[in-house]
């Protein structure tokens, strides 16, 4: 329990630091938020007035302190481009992104780990080399390019999958999704709107595959490497000396031992996916937080950028926390460290 409290307090500290870095970047760097707010055509007088209303004339630490308090109170400001509350914008878009990440990470874990294990089992053989080439291609592939290629091939040429969006546009009229949790695909399942579910899955495949390529490569490499590492340990030799079957040694012992690092890497790739969505959503016009982020970045919508950064940092922290939690269940030595 004490450890949990320590973890939480250190997480808060990290968030504080992260928000400070973003804030500093936004304020100290010579781009004028006021100008960004009212556009380049504004007069100097107008800009000065706005600076006062926005509190930009006050010293940076005071501004930061104010920002912190307001953020904590849930007042994350208004987007400069959409003029909507940031929190609202993020809440509206987050579910679509989380669904995308969920499918991507599932692809990556299932195929990555399975192929990594397979490669380890046949190390040095043809299968192993093939999987390793696949994996290294996965980690070398620019997501935005892969997205375009898949789009061109499977949506453009073969028309097997839709090119963009999370659902067909007509769906809104034919089979509207009743909002329950806000997660559209999930809501479609629990409300029994299977037409929408299938449509959503159909739309999901290309973006999720694109997004998962890097994590897939990472995971299969790590799974293979860790498994081989475990297989070279003394305790595996002992297990062999005591006549335990190779099957048991490989699938029950070694795989179980290799699991903790695999979980760590899964967490790490989930973190990669957070920024990965920026590019993939851009390519597939996915109505998620990633495309919102890119638009905000391009329009220097600084309240939105700060909000998104904070959410991403929280997401990263939560991922790490979950990883640690699983880790402590998997490896009895974790809490000792």
């Amino acid at each position, binding site marked *: 329990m004490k450890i949990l409290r320590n973890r939480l307090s250190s997480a808060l500290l*990290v*968030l504080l*630091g*992260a928000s*400070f*870095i*973003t804030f500093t*970047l*936004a304020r100290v*760097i010579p*781009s004028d938020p006021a100008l960004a707010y009212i556009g380049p055509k504004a007069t100097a007088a107008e800009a000065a007035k706005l600076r006062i209303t926005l509190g930009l004339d006050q010293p940076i630490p005071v501004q930061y302190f104010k920002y912190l308090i307001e953020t904590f109170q849930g007042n994350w400001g208004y987007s400069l481009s959409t003029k909507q509350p940031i929190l609202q914008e993020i809440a509206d878009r987050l579910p679509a992104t989380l669904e995308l990440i969920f499918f991507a990470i599932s692809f990556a874990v299932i195929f990555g780990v399975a192929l990594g294990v397979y490669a380890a089992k046949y*190390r*040095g053989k043809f299968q192993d*080399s093939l999987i*390793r*080439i696949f994996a*290294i*291609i996965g*980690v*070398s*592939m*620019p*997501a*935005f*390019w892969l997205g*375009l*290629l898949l*789009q*061109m091939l499977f949506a*453009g040429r073969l028309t097997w999958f839709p090119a963009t969006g999370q659902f067909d546009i007509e769906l809104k009229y034919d089979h509207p999704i009743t909002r329950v949790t806000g997660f559209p695909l999930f809501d479609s399942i629990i409300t029994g709107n299977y037409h929408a579910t299938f449509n959503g899955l159909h739309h999901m495949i290309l973006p999720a595959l694109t997004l998962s390529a890097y994590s897939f490569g990472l995971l299969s490499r790590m799974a*293979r*490497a860790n498994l*081989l*590492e475990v297989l070279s340990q003394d305790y595996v030799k002992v297990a062999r000396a005591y006549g335990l079957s190779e099957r048991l040694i490989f699938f029950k012992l070694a795989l179980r031992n290799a699991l903790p690092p695999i979980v760590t890497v899964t967490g790490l790739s989930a*973190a*990669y996916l*957070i*920024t990965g969505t*920026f*590019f993939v959503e*851009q*390519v597939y016009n996915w109505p998620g937080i990633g495309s919102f*982020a*890119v638009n905000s*970045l*391009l329009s*220097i919508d*600084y309240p939105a*950028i700060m909000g998104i*950064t904070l959410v*991403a*940092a929280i*997401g*990263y*922290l939560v991922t790490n926390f979950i990883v640690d939690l699983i880790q402590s269940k998997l490896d009895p030595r974790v809490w000792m460290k």
Partner: protein
Amino acid sequence: MKFLFKDKLTSMASTLLILFIFLAIFGPLVAPYPKEGRGKANVDNSFIGPGWKHLLGTDELGRDLLSRIIFGARPALLIALAVVGFAAVIGTLLGLIAGYRGGWIDSLIMRVSELFLSFPPLLLSLVAVTFLGPGLVNALIALIISWWPWYARLIRVEASIVKSKPYVEISAAMGVPDRVIILRHILRNVTTPLIVQIAADLGTVILAAGSLAFIGLGAQPPAADWGLMVAQGRNLIFDQWWISTFSGMAIFLAVLAFNILGDALRDHFDPRISRQ
């Protein structure tokens, strides 16, 4: 250097890398249309598909894509070297101090780098480059900002391992000054992991720089930048497919080559995690 050609895959990667370096240096001399490579528009020739005259086709402004890609090799390699170089220097310096000195300065340096590492990868660069203003140099700075902590962390761990080696303790006990110990004993013994990390990162930086350029925060037109070129062809992907496809291919192959060689380098220097 034999390990760079130890098997077919590695040899292919090495060859590819040599080709990229060659193009980065001599690109203007070998590009079929050097002027177009530099950015000169030739609107009459726009959107010609791949063929004998234009091996990889032409873009919206009628420029020869092959020449553009050849011209893109230099900025791609330069940004990779610059980012990794600066990040490694800053990170190594801080890591050495933290690892050797320990105590409060160690805690300070490590807490600060942890803060930078608390963002999902690339996010900090994206935010930084936004506020710095789009452009190649700013993208470079932004990437350095988010890259140095990795080196600080790596070198700190390595330095604290070397620090506890008997030869360092003996030197210190003999009265050798810290500065000399850091340079003579510690720095020299952290170079291997440093090189391995640099090799592994070069490809990743090219990928990251390409990503920044793709969403319009990196190099700006009319620069011949691979990421930018993919972005320019993005909306034409269904019809003028070659623009994005070939420019992206350049990024992919460069990253792939670096990654394969990074693996080879690591296997060579660090047989612990070698994979047969």
